[in-house]
C-alpha cells in the first residue's frame, strides 16, 4: 500500500518535470496564436533557447546568465518570425518551419565550432545549472502521513523553473481575461480590422505577443539544457514544441485546459518510461511506442471532431492586410 502510494507520487513527480517545458511552450503558443500568428516555431525557439542557455551557462558559470541568453536568443528568433510574417506578410507556417530547420542546424554547427564536441555542449561549470530547491520544512514534515510525502516528494525538490511554469499559468489567465493587453490580444486574433480601427496597431500587438512567446520558449529551452539536463544535445527538444502545440489545441487555446493537456501528455510520457519492458498483468508488455503516439493520435482525433471540437482564433494564419 505504502509502496504503491510512493510509486504514484514518483509518477506524479516525473509528470511535473516532463510537463514543465510543455507548459511554458504551450503558453508561448497561446500568446502567439491568440494574436493570430500560427506558432509552429515553438520547437525551434525552444531548441534555440536550450542551445543559448547551455553555451552561456557553460562560458559564464551562471545558470541565470544561461537563462537570459536563452530568452534573448528565443526573442531574437521571435523577431525574425515577426519580421517575416507580420512586417513582410509572409506565410506564418513557412517562416516557422524555416526557423525550426535553421536552428536544428545552427545549434550543432556552433556547438561543434565553439566547443569542439560533435553537436553537443556539456554544462559542467560550477553553478551553471539550476539546482533543485528544497521548500521550507520539507524534511521536517516528511514523516507526516499522506501530506508529508506529497509535500516533500512531489512539491518540494524541483528547480525554480518548474515553479515558474506553474505560476505562469494563473498569471497568463489573468493577463488574458482581465488586462488591457489580454483584451487586445484576444481581439487581434479574432478581428484585426476591429483592432486597427480602434486605433491600435495590429502589427505591434502581434510583435508583442511573439516577444512574450519568445520569452516563454526561451525559459522552456533553458529548462531543457541547464535545469532538467546538463547539456545541449542535437534535436534535444525531440518534438516537444509540436507536442506543446498539440496541447494548446487540445486545450482550445485557453490557459487552464492547455495546462491539463500538458499534464496529460507528460503523464503519458512518464508512464511510458516506467512501463519500458514491464509485464503488465493481463495485457502483457505494452509497446512504449504506442504510448508515445497517444498524444499525437488524441490531437488528430480532436481536430477531426471525434472528441469535442477545437475552434481556432478566427484570424489565425492570415497576415493582416488593409482591404483594397
Amino acid at each position, binding site marked *: 500500500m505504502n509502496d504503491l502510494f510512493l510509486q504514484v507520487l514518483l509518477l506524479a513527480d516525473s509528470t511535473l518535470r516532463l510537463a514543465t517545458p510543455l507548459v511554458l511552450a504551450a503558453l508561448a503558443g497561446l500568446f502567439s496564436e491568440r494574436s493570430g500568428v500560427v506558432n509552429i516555431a515553438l520547437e525551434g525557439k525552444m531548441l534555440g533557447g536550450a542551445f543559448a542557455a547551455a553555451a552561456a551557462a557553460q562560458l559564464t558559470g551562471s545558470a541565470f546568465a544561461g537563462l537570459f541568453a536563452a530568452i534573448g536568443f528565443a526573442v531574437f528568433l521571435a523577431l525574425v518570425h515577426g519580421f517575416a510574417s507580420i512586417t513582410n506578410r509572409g506565410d506564418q507556417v513557412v517562416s516557422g518551419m524555416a526557423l525550426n530547420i535553421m536552428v536544428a542546424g545552427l545549434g550543432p554547427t556552433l556547438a561543434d565550432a565553439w566547443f569542439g564536441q560533435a553537436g553537443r555542449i556539456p554544462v559542467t561549470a560550477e553553478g551553471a545549472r539550476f539546482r533543485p530547491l528544497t521548500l521550507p520544512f520539507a524534511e521536517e514534515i516528511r514523516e507526516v502521513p499522506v501530506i508529508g510525502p506529497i509535500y516533500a516528494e512531489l512539491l518540494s525538490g524541483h528547480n525554480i523553473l518548474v515553479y515558474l511554469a506553474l505560476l505562469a499559468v494563473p498569471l497568463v489567465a489573468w493577463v488574458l481575461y482581465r488586462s*488591457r493587453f489580454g483584451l*487586445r490580444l484576444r481581439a487581434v486574433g*479574432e478581428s484585426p480590422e*476591429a483592432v486597427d*480601427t*480602434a486605433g491600435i496597431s495590429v502589427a505591434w500587438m502581434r510583435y508583442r505577443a511573439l516577444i512574450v512567446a519568445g520569452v516563454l520558449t526561451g525559459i522552456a529551452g533553458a529548462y531543457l539544457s541547464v535545469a532538467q539536463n546538463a547539456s545541449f544535445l542535437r534535436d534535444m527538444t525531440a518534438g516537444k514544441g509540436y507536442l506543446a502545440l498539440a496541447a494548446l489545441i487540445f486545450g482550445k487555446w485557453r490557459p487552464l485546459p492547455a495546462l491539463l493537456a500538458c499534464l496529460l501528455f507528460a503523464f503519458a510520457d512518464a508512464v511510458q518510461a516506467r512501463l519500458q519492458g514491464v509485464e503488465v498483468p493481463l495485457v502483457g508488455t505494452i509497446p512504449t511506442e504506442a504510448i508515445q503516439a497517444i498524444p499525437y493520435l488524441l490531437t488528430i482525433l480532436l481536430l477531426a471532431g471525434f472528441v469535442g471540437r477545437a475552434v481556432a482564433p478566427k484570424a489565425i494564419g492570415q497576415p493582416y492586410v488593409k482591404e*483594397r
Partner: protein
Amino acid sequence: MGAEAAAAGVDETPAVELRGICKSFGPVQANREVDLAVAAGTIHGIVGENGAGKSTLMNILYGFYQPDAGRILVDGRPRRIRSPLDAIRAGIGMVHQHFMLVEPFTVLENLLLGAEGGFTLEAGIARARREIEAIERDYGLEVDLDAVVRDLPVGVQQRVEILKALFRGAHILVLDEPTGVLTPQEADHLFRILENLREQGRTVVLITHKLREIMAVTDHVSVMRGGRMVAHRRTSETSTEELAELMVGRKVLLRVEKGPARPGEPVLEVAGLEVRDDFDVPRVRDVSFTVRAGEILGIAGVAGNGQSELLEALAGIRRPSRGRILLRGRPVEDAARARARRLGHVPEDRLRMGLVRSFTAWENAILGYQRLAGYLRGGFLRRRRMIAGCVDWMERYDVRPRDPFLHAADFSGGNQQKLVLARELEHDPDLLLVGQPTRGVDIGAIEFIHRRLVAMRDAGKAILLVSVELEEVMSLADRILVMFDGRIMGEMAAEEAEERRLGLLMAGVTAEAG
C-alpha cells in the same frame, strides 16, 4: 475659411475641411485634388458611383490611408492624421460598411477595445457602463451591453458601432454606406438617430450611392466622380435628377426600356423549399414559386434574408433540407449536372464565387464549364480553343482591356462582371440565375448588363433575378417576390409594385398587419 467653404455655402468654421487631397494606388488615381468642407452641426452627404473615390477619401480622413498630397483641418486647425488613433484623438469616429466588431466579444468588450482606461479592465468597465448608459439615453441607442455581438441582428450591431464612436468622444461621425444591410424602415430609424446627433451639435458625414437617402436626411451634399469632387449643393436646392447627372456626368435613364413579357412554359419550379446554412440554421423556409420561359422573376429583400442560400440551392451548390427544385420537370442534383442541363448562374459575389482572382481571363472564361466536351480531348484541356473563345467574348461584351492573359483581379468590377456574364450567357442557358448583377459596377456597365438581361428574356429564356437594390428589381423584373427571414412575403406584378409596400414586406410586415 477657404474658398471651398464659401462655395459650399458655409459661413462659419467647418468641422472638417479637406484641401487638395490626392491619393494613388499604383497607377490608379483614387482621389485627385479633392476639396471638401463640412459645416459643424450638419449632416453632409457624399454621393458618387462605385469607385468614385468616396471611401478612399473618408479612409484618409480616418487615418487608414495616407494622402499623397493635401491637408486636413479639423475645427479650423490643421491636423496630421497618420492613424485611426490620430483621427479618434481629433474627435472623428467612423462606422465602416463592414462592421469592425469582434464577434465573440460582448458589446461592452467591443466598446472598451482601445479605450480601456488602464492596465486592468476593472475600472474601465465600471466607467464605461456609466458613460454608455448616459449616451444611450441621449441618443435613443438602446443596446444590451452584455449581449455577445455575434448574436445581435445587423441593425443593432450598427448601433454598437455608433456607440463605439460616441464613447470614444467623436463629435464628427462618418458613416460609409450604412443602409446597405438595413430595411427601408430600419434605415429610417437610423436617420432619426443621425438627426438626433445633429440636434446635439455633432457633425455627420454620410457616404452613400442612394440618392433617396441624401434627399431624406442631409443638409448639404457633395458629389464625386472619377476621383474628383465635382459639385457641392445645399440639399434643399438640388434634385435627384441633378445629382444623378452630376454623378454620371451625363443624363441617365433610370428606367430600363423593355416591352411586355411573353411568359411561356415553366422552366424552374420550386415547391416547399427549406435550405439550411453551414450552422444548420434554416435560412430558406417553405418557399415555392415558378419561373417561366420569357420572363424575369425578381426577388427583392434586404441582404441576409435567405436570398444567398436560395440561389445556392437552386444552382445545386447547397443541398436543400426539404422540398424540391425542378428544372424543366426534373430535379436538380448538383452544380455540375445542373450546368450540364443548361442552368447559368451569375453569382452574387463574383470575386468569391464567380471568378478565381489569380486565374487568367481565359481560365475564368470556362469556370464551371470545364467538363464540356468541346473544351476537352481525352481529359486534356484544349487551351487554344479556350483562349480563342475568350478573346471573342471580350470583343462582344466589351471587356477591357482585351487581354485574355490578364488575371481576373486586375480587371475593374464592371469588366469582371461582363466577363462572368459573357461566360454564363454564351453557354446558352435555358434558365439564368442572377445575383446582384450590378454590385460594384459603374453606370455604363450597369446599362449594358440590364440590356443584355432583357435581351435574354426576349429570346425566351427564364431569368431569376435576386437583388438588394429595390430600384433594380422594380425596373427589370416582370414579377416581384419579396423575401424576409427566409420566407416569401408576397408577390406582385411589376406594374403594381410601389416602393412603400415593397419596403414594408421587406421588413416582414404583411399588408393586413401593416
